[in-house]
């Protein structure tokens, strides 16, 4: 199973390195989103208080939705998702492989978004890099865990582009809220690490629940 997961992740990254399609569209969209917020909300060089956390997570969620849609569109075009499901390995390996590929792509986007938001909104996001990494990574895993499952389910639905955000956002609202609150806690003048730990622990528990449910439901959802 581990070999299949590794092969799928490596294949997805190879395809992306060749085409750069998802990286460019996701980054362009996310950076445009942050710039729009900056032009709208930063007045005379003064950003809104506590706005950076929300803007960062809105950008991650929108960019993630775009990346999820495009990743599975690629698998739909030559019906390669069916070929993956035919492989002699447990089908949840396909889910995990696709999930890790999405997470890797979003981490690349976040590596650009975090300094950009930090710069434009004068937010000390990088003052506690370990805790920021913990919040962003656990939030990204939770968002991607649900998104990967829904994007795979909808791969043959005609209105998948509409249905994906409609299904995804209500379910991932708790993850986004915990991500925003955890990030906002890191931006306080005096950071209370106990509060940050609480939000990270909540995000970890969301991750465990979402990934477990997705692994459990992936095979029946993909075969019926």
């Amino acid at each position, binding site marked *: 199973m581990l070999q299949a997961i590794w092969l799928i992740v490596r294949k997805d990254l190879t*395809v992306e390195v060749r085409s750069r399609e998802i990286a460019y569209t996701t980054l362009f969209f996310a950076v445009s989103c942050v710039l729009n917020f900056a032009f709208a909300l930063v007045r005379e060089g003064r950003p809104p208080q506590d706005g950076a956390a929300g803007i960062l997570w809105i950008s991650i969620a929108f960019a993630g939705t775009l990346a999820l849609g495009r990743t599975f569109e*690629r698998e739909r075009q*030559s019906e390669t998702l*069916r*070929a993956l499901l035919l492989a*002699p390995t447990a089908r949840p390996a396909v889910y995990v492989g696709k999930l890790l590929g999405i997470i890797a792509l979003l981490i690349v986007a976040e590596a650009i978004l975090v300094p950009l938001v930090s710069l434009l909104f004068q937010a000390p996001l990088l003052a506690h890099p370990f805790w920021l990494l913990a919040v962003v990574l656990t939030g990204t895993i939770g968002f991607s865990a649900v998104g990967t499952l829904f994007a795979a389910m909808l791969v043959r639905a005609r209105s998948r582009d509409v249905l994906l955000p409609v299904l995804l956002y209500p379910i991932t609202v708790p993850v986004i809220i915990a991500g925003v609150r955890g990030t906002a806690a890191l931006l306080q003048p005096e950071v209370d690490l106990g509060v940050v730990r609480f939000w990270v622990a909540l995000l970890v528990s969301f991750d465990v629940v979402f990934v477990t449910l997705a692994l459990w439901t992936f*095979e029946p959802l993909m075969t*019926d």
Partner: protein
Amino acid sequence: MNRPRVTPLDFDQVVVDDVSRHFGRRRALARISFIAARSAILGLLGPNGAGKSTMLSLLATLMRPTSGRIRFGVLDVEIADERAPALRGRIGVLGHDLFLYPELTARENLAFFGGLYKLPDPNRAAFAALQRAGLADRADDQVASFSRGMRQRVALERALIHDPRLVLLDEPFTGLDDASAAALVARLKALRHAGAIVVIATHDLDIAEGLLDHAVFLRDGRVAHSAARPEGLRSTYRAVMGTPGA
């Protein structure tokens, strides 16, 4: 040819027993029964919408029957059964869509699928497969740059790279020129000779003529006619379907 390392669940026939498949209220297949035997080529013939591709998806374990059973030899394997992955290791599928990544080279595509099928040396298996397809000199070109016929040849090798017992082909002659179609027919005969169970869904009665050991004519999701060692496929098709034929 490379053999998969997984312990295969082998079988010498596939028995489709009273299988139906519904999509919501729409009936795609109704009470289909046939046996596909080893060292034989079975053709699923019928017009668009007759249920051929759905039947292939059921045989490939990509779907569950709504009712009825599909037995692989003595095994009655459910899709969620723990033996299902090993069973899938004995099935090769060439779909109407080719299951290839256009951004990857031919060698990378085949090595990727060889790896998924746990071949001991996927790169070597990929190169050997490309030699069989006559595409060794294009091994490191992206599949996106290939013609439809070349892609079809790579896709066939992808379906066969793990030496499957059951080979399922959906419209395999689409887009092939005469030489490529003749090469595919020769390959199918070689598979039959090697003991594979080959099931083809096709419209192309001219090519199927003389190739099939068993023909199952599907119409509106039902078996309209079935014949062993079929001859005069086009006239039989006309008589069964009541149309001028494919």
